[in-house]
């Protein structure tokens, strides 16, 4: 009898236990992070009356180097954005000028989308900024997920708390919510089209939605992605902007 009781107690105990949130985040990092990435993307910005489509090609290396070149529409063609650690440079072919985006300008929207330059600049690891805890399990798009609640442990973060839904099997985030200090939901990110690319699970579509604004948000789709490529050093230099 006491063995049965011990079995039942331990079964319920372990059912209530969730894995360590930091370990989950590390597994997500291992899955999502590569030495570098080369991709082509399509960004659909849904406006009140119509939608704009912007295509681009990008190169990223680690968390602190990224170059994006816009391919279309014609008015954005040739515009380049270079992120080097905490600096963001934009090259405009029409004026043949390179400008440094800083201060409040970083808070402006990127090409009218629901993304700010600052959102693009975020490169610190979540485990450095937040205390994470698994608070439950939910099903998202038919996939079992861990629900992680993140609370800021440092002062200089944009969002005081976050909630992330992570696929229990593939260790890919499927949904994320970003909250203000007051608890107001500010932004919502949904990841779709998770595919296995070069041995890692990767969401090819991300939908960003500013929850305070009306509209359907901004849809970012990777049309082509390659990991761990040989990217020449000059790509991540200011000189490359004018090439």
């Amino acid at each position, binding site marked *: 009898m006491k063995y049965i009781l011990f079995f039942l107690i331990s079964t319920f105990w372990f059912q209530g236990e969730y894995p360590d949130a930091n370990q989950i985040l590390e597994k997500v990092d291992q899955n999502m992070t590569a030495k570098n990435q080369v991709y082509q993307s399509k960004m659909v910005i849904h406006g009140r009356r119509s939608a704009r489509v912007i295509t681009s090609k990008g190169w990223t290396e680690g968390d602190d180097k990224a170059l994006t070149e816009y391919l279309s529409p014609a008015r954005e063609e040739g515009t380049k954005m270079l992120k080097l650690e905490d600096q963001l440079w934009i090259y405009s072919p029409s004026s043949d000028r390179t400008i440094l985006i800083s*201060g*409040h*300008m970083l*808070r402006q929207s990127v090409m009218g989308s629901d993304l700010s330059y600052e959102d693009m600049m975020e490169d610190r690891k979540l485990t450095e900024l937040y205390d994470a805890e698994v608070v439950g399990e939910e099903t998202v798009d038919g996939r079992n997920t861990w629900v992680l609640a993140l609370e*800021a442990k440092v*002062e*200089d*973060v*944009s*969002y*005081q708390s976050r909630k992330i839904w992570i696929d229990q099997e593939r260790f890919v985030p499927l949904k994320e919510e*970003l909250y*203000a*200090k*007051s608890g*107001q939901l*500010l932004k919502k990110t949904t990841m779709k089209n998770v595919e296995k690319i070069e041995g890692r699970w990767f969401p090819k579509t991300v939908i960003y939605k*500013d929850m*305070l*604004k*009306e*509209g359907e948000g901004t849809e970012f789709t990777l049309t082509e992605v390659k990991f761990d490529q040989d990217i020449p050093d000059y790509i991540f230099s200011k000189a490359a902007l004018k090439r």
Partner: protein
Amino acid sequence: MLTFKLALKNLLGAGMRTWLNVAVLSLAYIVIIFYNGLIDGWNQQARHDSILWEYGQGQLWHQSYDPYDPFTLQEAHGTLPQSADSKALIPILITQGSIYPQGRMQSVQLKGIPPHQQLLALPTHSLDNTTHVMPALIGKRMANTTKLRKGDQVLIRWRDKNGTFDAREIVITEIFDSDVSSIDNGQVWLPLQGLQEMTGLQEQATLWVAGGGYQPTSLEHWKFQSQDALLANLDAVIQSKKASGFIIYTLLLGIALLAIFDTQVLSIFRRQKEIGTYMALGMTRLQVVGLFTLEGGANSLLATVVGSLYGVPLLLYLANTGFAMPAASDNYGLTIAERIYPVYSVGLILGTIALVVIAATLVSFLPSRKIAKMNPTLALKGKVQ
């Protein structure tokens, strides 16, 4: 006196030609006085309103604050040193944020001000609200662009001193109507303490507005902007408007003076026998020149009388009812009332009369100089010289 009577008789005898000159000249009078009166009226109203609603007796700015560079707002705040005479000052904290009326995002400046202040005309008493929703005050222009009305609740988003986003609802407790657009467009006024708590900038302000009796002293990290310095931009606009007006009425006055000049040239050409007769009767050349100059100059005196007949009632009417400015003319950051009441100073009226009389006399004298070179005998015979 005889010369003056003779000049006036000759002038009136010229009939329609004289009255045409007088009509154009009197119009120039009215336009000059009205335009300058309008600018002076605008200047007086704008200065009065700017002081009443925004500038007070001067402002003490944080050293990093630049009203034309919103990027400075991130750093432009601090506490006032103990040595400052804070009794005669009211603090204002400014930060950037966003407002979401009907789901649209709009950048705004959030301004914190003590609800019990009485230095500025802003109805800040409406911010002394103890409901659970933060009270807010906006101007009529802001209300128009955001389609917000009194009692509406709307969401605002801002960042605290560390850059962390925060958002909450506010309720519009009052919509004020001010001619000063620079305290209205894209601005939301909140209780100072509330904004300080929202941003984590307790006891801090971006600027302090000075009241009467404030004695500016040198304070570390703060710079005092005198009332004159704050009004310098308005003065510059007024000066440029006066300059552009000068061009308009110079053209009008030029047309009138040209008409007088032509009349004089024609008179001297056609009245040679008369000139010869004056000389034969014993008038010196200079006296004849004086007579013709006086005739021309008397146009301006007649224009003063005629201009007074229709101008005084017209200008007084406009001074009482005001001149309606085009809608939205104050949305460009300038302080302009919906109606401007022209102000006609004694200096303006006397100065305008002096300007027109001197100018008309001068253009009358220039062709009359020819008389001094005339041969009296040939003139008497009416021969062209």
